[in-house]
């Protein structure tokens, strides 16, 4: 499970260096994200731009992370690729997550806010 994380203004930016978040790694993924967000700034932004496949296990893991961070911290997504975006639309989870069109947008917002 390859995740990188850094602090950018009021956000922790987590970059997913994996092409898939699927049943094979969903539990590891959830644990790792929890580990790197134990404490830190109020926003957590997940850079999904390298992820080209998300299955229901992966989606469930994202929801679980958001539930765990809420209500004190927000869990936001950036850089959804075509197939991943379709999964969000189909399951109506696009109405639940704050989705930024790009990491740059998410980070720009961080700069505006600080």
């Amino acid at each position, binding site marked *: 499970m390859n995740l990188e994380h850094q602090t950018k203004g009021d956000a922790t930016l987590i970059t997913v260096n994996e092409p898939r978040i699927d049943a*094979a790694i969903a539990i590891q993924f959830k644990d790792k994200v929890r580990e790197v967000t134990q404490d830190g700034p109020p926003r957590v932004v997940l850079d999904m731009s390298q992820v080209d496949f998300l299955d229901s296990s992966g989606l469930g893991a994202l929801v679980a992370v958001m539930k765990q961070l809420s209500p004190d911290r927000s869990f936001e997504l950036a850089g959804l690729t075509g197939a991943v975006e379709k999964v969000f639309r189909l399951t109506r989870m696009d109405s639940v997550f704050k989705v930024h069109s790009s990491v740059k947008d998410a980070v720009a917002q961080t700069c505006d806010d600080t």
Partner: protein
Amino acid sequence: MADTESNHVRITFWSDPFEVRDVLHKLQTQWSGWGTDEELTQKAEQVVAEVLNNVVEHAHREDPEGEIILTCVRGKSEPTLKFEIRDDGIPMPGLQLPSGKLAEFGPDTADLPEGGFGWFMIRELTQNLDYQRAGDWNVLRFTVAA
């Protein structure tokens, strides 16, 4: 790839999430060889992943000795992919497929569903979805169209 003909592919494998990944990769290679439309292959990969995950987790209860046989046939003239997925795991409860209804959710994050997305997507993205128990095998058939 084992047993490939011009219009169909059959893959036999063991019940394991990494095997599932490998099979999806093999299918993508085959679809690419057929020149199948990308929108169709994207849908098909999603559905097959969801079906196989359910087989691994529920029918085989993560028993790595469970066997799965997947057959994919491409449409002759129409842009479709037809699938048959057989597994020797336990039958579907009540010999019926899950309804695949997405849980209702409100504005409260704490109430969001973490599961139930799989069968919902399978039902949304397939046609002619059919389940039968044949001897010791679950047999699921469906079509994915562009």
